[in-house]
């Protein structure tokens, strides 16, 4: 049987959702028999494959680059899972939305810089005015709230998808969990 291909994406988040995914412990072996991770911060692929069955996205949309990435992913992916509060609600990254982008950069790179204070300008994606959840830009098929979602919820979601069912994880996790 052909394995289901999966990508995991890391946008504006703390990587805690990826950690929580790894927290499914030995069950990852069971999943690995049916699932192949073809793109992820955890593996070494550089470019997004032409087709992926499932993409699990952690993190909120914060930069112009994030949007480009998302649109590309959406067009090359079957099912998109927004994993964790940042992807689902904007969560902690969205707390900067009450400030001007310039002020945010200054706080980080000028006021609190130990040396060489100054805003970064080259080679970096520029910050969007507002941080938004993933579904504001592309269609999301499964939402898994939680900060991070517990490993059990992630395992449940992935197993259900592998079974061809539509997972409803809300009884296993919630906003802020």
């Amino acid at each position, binding site marked *: 049987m052909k394995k289901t291909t999966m990508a995991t994406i890391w946008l504006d988040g703390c990587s805690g959702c990826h950690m929580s995914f790894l927290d499914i412990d030995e069950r990852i072996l069971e999943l690995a028999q049916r699932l192949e991770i073809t793109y992820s911060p955890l593996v070494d692929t550089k470019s997004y494959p032409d087709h992926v069955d499932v993409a699990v996205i952690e993190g909120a949309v914060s930069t112009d680059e994030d949007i480009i990435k998302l649109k590309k992913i959406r067009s090359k992916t079957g099912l998109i899972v927004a994993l964790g509060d940042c992807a689902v609600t904007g969560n902690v990254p969205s707390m900067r939305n009450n400030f001007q982008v310039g002020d945010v950069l200054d706080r980080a790179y000028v006021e609190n810089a130990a040396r060489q204070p100054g805003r970064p300008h080259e080679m970096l994606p520029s910050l969007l005015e507002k941080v*938004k959840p993933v579904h504001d830009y592309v269609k999301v098929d499964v939402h898994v709230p939680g900060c991070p979602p517990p490993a059990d919820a992630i395992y449940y979601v992935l197993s259900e998808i592998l079974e061809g069912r539509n997972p409803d994880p*809300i009884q296993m996790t919630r906003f802020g969990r």
Partner: protein
Amino acid sequence: MSDQTVSIKTLKIDGRDVSARADETILAVAQQNGIDIPTLCHLDGLTPVGACRLCLVEIAGSNKLLPACVTTVREGMEVFTESEKLNRYRKMILELLFSERNHICAVCVSNGHCDLQDLAVRLGVDFIRYPYLHPVEKVDASHDRFVQDDNRCVLCGRCVRVCGELEGAHTWDFMGRGVQTRVITDLDTPWGESDSCTRCGKCVHVCPTGALIEKGRSVAEMAKRRQFLPYLTLMRQEDQQ
């Protein structure tokens, strides 16, 4: 109770035959019979206001949805507390509430002890379709014991009512209107400078979210204690007789 006799009504809630005093609300009767209707602005012991609209129920023979918290029973009434339509509306109302202010559950002191969060789980709200409004809100930490964080306020008015009706201080009220409505103390004075606040803390404990909290609590530490409400309400009722 006065010795005036109150008539008894019989009605159906979700297909079950129940009886009620004529002056009881659908919500109260449902609760007595173990039928749990979602509520947010309602709190036993405070005057119901019918503002959050989560407790809307269907009544056979009427196409109007009625708030269970303020609608009194009628003989032969047939009430439905759950339906596809009700559930859809309730979910939308919750989504509106989540989109209105800046509810970042992960860093909230009331995380895990929050009525809004619980309702989201119960009604199956796993994401918010409406764009977040991201208003700029104030956090008032001027009081030596309490903090008011407007980012998490749902304008249910429980604090306003408990302060006016039970404590008798009426330190809180609403100011402004529409989506600009805010709860304020005195003349929008910092809470710590309020002359009328008695520091009783009831507002903090009736607050359904982390909008009113005790100082010095960290994330997920602020559980609310509401045991005082039934007793105070009972005392007040006895005083009135």
